[in-house]
């Protein structure tokens, strides 16, 4: 381990803002991107399921009328 204390680690020798600013933004975006992809996939799956069920219901009601 290179550091002597947590405070020293967080200070990054006067460069704390720059180092943690890089780490923070990169980590945030690399969490946000998969979250958005998963949300998009779930939304699409829900929309397609609704559509398929509606189409199936329509098909069966048409058959019953006959």
């Amino acid at each position, binding site marked *: 381990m*290179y550091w002597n204390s947590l405070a020293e680690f967080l200070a990054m020798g*006067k460069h704390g803002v*720059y180092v943690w600013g890089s*780490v923070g933004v990169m980590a945030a975006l690399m969490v946000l991107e*998969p979250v958005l*992809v998963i949300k998009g996939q779930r939304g699409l799956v829900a929309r397609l399921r609704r559509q398929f*069920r509606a189409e*199936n219901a329509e098909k069966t009601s048409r058959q019953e009328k006959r």
Partner: protein
Amino acid sequence: MSNKHINWFRFASPQAFYPLAGKMIPWFWALAAIFGVAGLYVGFLVAPTDAQQGEGYRIIFLHVPASWMSMFIYLVMAFWAGLGLAFNFRLSGMMATALAPTGALFAFLSLWTGALWGKPMWGAWWVWDARLTSELILLFLYVGFIALQSAIDDPRRADKAGAILALVGVVNVPIIYFSVKWWNTLHQGSSVNLAKSSMAAVMLWGMLLCALACWMYAIAVALMRVRTIILERERHTDWVRAELIQPADEV
């Protein structure tokens, strides 16, 4: 022998690739996490300070992998786009579309971490240096590719238009890579060299582990996104209907 032979071309069909991608995604996430933890441990906790740059140099453990990925993803994206243009494989265009946002993310992160490194080291967030400017153009190429594709309703035509843009833009990648050699730039030359690296071994290891983590992350996210694109584009097929509606739902 012929029985054991795997027909890889089978996976060129979206229907066969969809479940395969689903099986691979957790493995790539696991590898990304392992390499990420190891890389950040080596880079931020084990590696010593840099004599010239102080602790601010640790930004390169993020900056260099992000920059490598931004260029590499562009090459892969252009490869898939070109393959789709030449052979009309349906999956190729979907792969190119799936890679673009992740490439744009890494191009942005390269510029962001670069600016945060540049301020304490050079005294400027940004300079119109050949390396920085060509990386900014790469970000614009990604954004242009995404905007062009989303402006065209027909996916096959969007793939073709995007492919031409992606292929023309490939010329920018060697310009970024060699800019520090071709021009007298403020940006420093390559720190990693196969013959003799200018970095200490522990620093090099930290950087390579972080790069591997970004690589695994990019594959995992691109596979997740390509699955969404496959469902969207193949929604009129029977297999997507069967995939999403369980037999119990059928009346």
